[in-house]
């Protein structure tokens, strides 16, 4: 068994209003940042996994997204990285 770190990104569906993203965009404007066209805020879940291989860790992480980490009604997910930890 080896240790891996898997990084999952869960974002609100683009079709869904993201009031938090809007609030951040607005606040950035007030702070004087120019050129902020849009902001979306989602979640990052960093998993430390024991697995036989990177492939197994990746599969595990994807299964966790499907079951728990993302809500299929409102969110999309992506597995950004699987690295030895």
């Amino acid at each position, binding site marked *: 068994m080896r240790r891996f770190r898997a990084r999952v990104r869960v974002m609100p569906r683009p079709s869904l209003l993201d009031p938090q993203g809007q609030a951040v965009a*607005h606040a950035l404007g007030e702070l004087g940042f120019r050129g902020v066209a849009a902001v979306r805020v989602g979640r990052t879940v960093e998993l430390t996994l024991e697995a036989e291989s990177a492939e197994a860790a990746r599969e595990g992480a994807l299964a966790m997204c499907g079951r728990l980490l993302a809500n299929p009604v409102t969110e999309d997910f992506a597995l950004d990285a699987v690295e030895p930890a």
Partner: protein
Amino acid sequence: MSARAREGDPPLTPELVRRHGLTADELERIRGILGRDPTYVELGIFSALWSEHCAYKHSRPVLKSFPTDGPQVLQGPGENAGVLRLGHGWAVVFKMESHNHPSAVEPYQGAATGVGGILRDIFTMGARPVALLDSLRFGPLERERPRYLMRGVVRGIGDYGNCVGVPTVGGDVAFDDAYEGNPLVNAMCVGLVREDELIRARAAGPGNPVMVVGSRTGRDGIHGASFASAELSAQSESRRPQVQVGDPFTEKLLIEASLELIGSGHIVAIQDMGAAGLTSSAAEMAARGGVGVDLDARAVPVRETEMTPYEVLLSESQERMLVVARRGREREVEAICRTWELTATAIGRVTDDGVFRVRWGDEVVAEIPGRDLVERAPVYAPAARESPAIARLRERALPAGAGPGQDLGAALERLLDLPTIASKRWVYEQYDTSVQTSTVMGPGGDAAVLRVRGTPLGLAVTSGGSGRYVWLDPYEGGKAAVAEAARNIAVTGARPLGITDCLNFGNPEKPEVFYQFREACRGIADACRALGTPVTGGNVSFYNESPAGAVYPTPMIGMVGVLPDVSRRVGAAFRAPGDVIVCLGRVRGELGGSQYLSLVTGEVFGRPPRVDLEAARALVDCLVEGAERGLLASAHDVSEGGLAVALAECGMLAPEPLGFDADLGAVAGAPPDALPAAAVLFGEDQGVAVVSVAPAAAAELAAVAGRHGVPLAAIGTVGRPGGAARLAVGGERVERPVAALRRGYENGLPRRLDGGAGMSLAQGA
């Protein structure tokens, strides 16, 4: 066996001692107790327990002057919380505490963990927490930092209280330059317990196992107690302890598990692990019980790797409890904890040698006579001297006629928009105020009222205090803080029972600060005596200073009261058109230190309102009797903003705002001695309430007031929904649609706080 230094421990140098917040004299005292040099671990232990926060080095003698007795007192100061008898077999358990420094550094977590800590003080007494209150002070909202702090603090309090399911039903918020560098975050918790189910945190029974319940221990907040006992400065940035993160979910489980443990009979004592963590909880519990403890710090479940005994002993990780179980009942304790998905771990035993002994596996790392550790902490009697500059400000004369040709209507509008006076809806709508379904009167008026299920009783709760008055005149200000709390309780119809306090001051080693502290406490003590409300406990928070100076001396008073029949409670809002508006108490038009005065002059000066304690007591009695007889349709006391603001609030607070017609001539006095109009409208007299009564009840109320010797004047009538608020005094007239007043009052906070920069994503925006 004697404690020995561990490999890698830093040597005992003057620098190390200083970094622990201990003086050379204090080190000598420690050597005297131990008969040798302390080990590094022991130095850490003394540092924590002898910090101002734990040992009350500078405040103990002063606090001794508080009245603490009364027939209603079941538990005075000295336990985790005070306890007062309510009747019908029930008792109220309550306490207030500060989390100012952690909140200045990290407002969200600082405030959240403050709530967590005060909750634990209540349920360790066997009481179920039924209400939270929060008293907050920030710099002006015109600046970004105070806005950021306020958003974070309110969200932190809300998220914690909402999650554990305890309604936050009251509090107060005020703003002033004096708090810009050092905000105040004081939280109060109130619980209910059957009198015969009270438990006290006293270790007993040599051989009984000591167990830790709840979260694992990490490196959070090591040295938090000594951090709380130093001024905030640029250096405190680097010395600042690891931020403590609150976990209200675990706290909720701890509440349930602790109450079940207490009810089970398997434990003899339980104490939360607050400031200075395992060290202070174990040492205090042992000292109270007159026993020793023998602990293995290595048995404590940890969250991080390679923690040292020093770190384990001083960690302030949240959501942990220390339990003394009955011998042989470890399994039962573990089982109860497991049902609540918590762990319980035995880490040592109660002993009969009175020694506070800590092991790390086979090594003994600390061995201190327990009683000396807690009771031989140094006590100081600092010098006290009034600041001449403040004395001059107090004596400075007010502008003649209370200010040059003001537009009084515009002044009223501006006062209602001041963040200190404006509606606090922005705050309390972020708090769950109705969970537990006992909130009979929530925030928005004066005190909140809860019902006590299964009895006819009502429980009234309030917290607050004016730092300005105390700054200008500590003695009068101290009296005023208690008198205002008592009025807030009494206007609901409840009888004040007792107080807890949170005394927020600057550095007590400065004579000007210690003077404020001593005099304010004298005022509090006198007022509590006169009002029959003993002090049952509280908290001292010194060193509330920033490079810009000390905060206003701000003793916050948390008060509870009881209504024999909750259905007789009285709200602040006018109820019915045609009701007679009555002013109770003598109006003196006191503008010193008032919001109006600083509005028109930009300064804080003058003599703050004086409190006639006998009159204050009479007003309380009169309000309580008026409510008991069912005479009062509404009652609201005068505080910031004076009579005009109080009347406007009575109109605006109705579900559908009600207009009114009030002529204050009757309370202004007759010419040539008549008070100036501005003084009558906006003076912050400490002893006045505005009530409304059905016309048929007016005569009986007058009789009640007469019997209590309370001056009474009928000043007007309640108008129609959406009508005009009309005020007349002398030749002056103010008239505004009550709906317009309400818009301004409701907008004061949102227009400054909603949207824009100063938000924090880390606090979930």
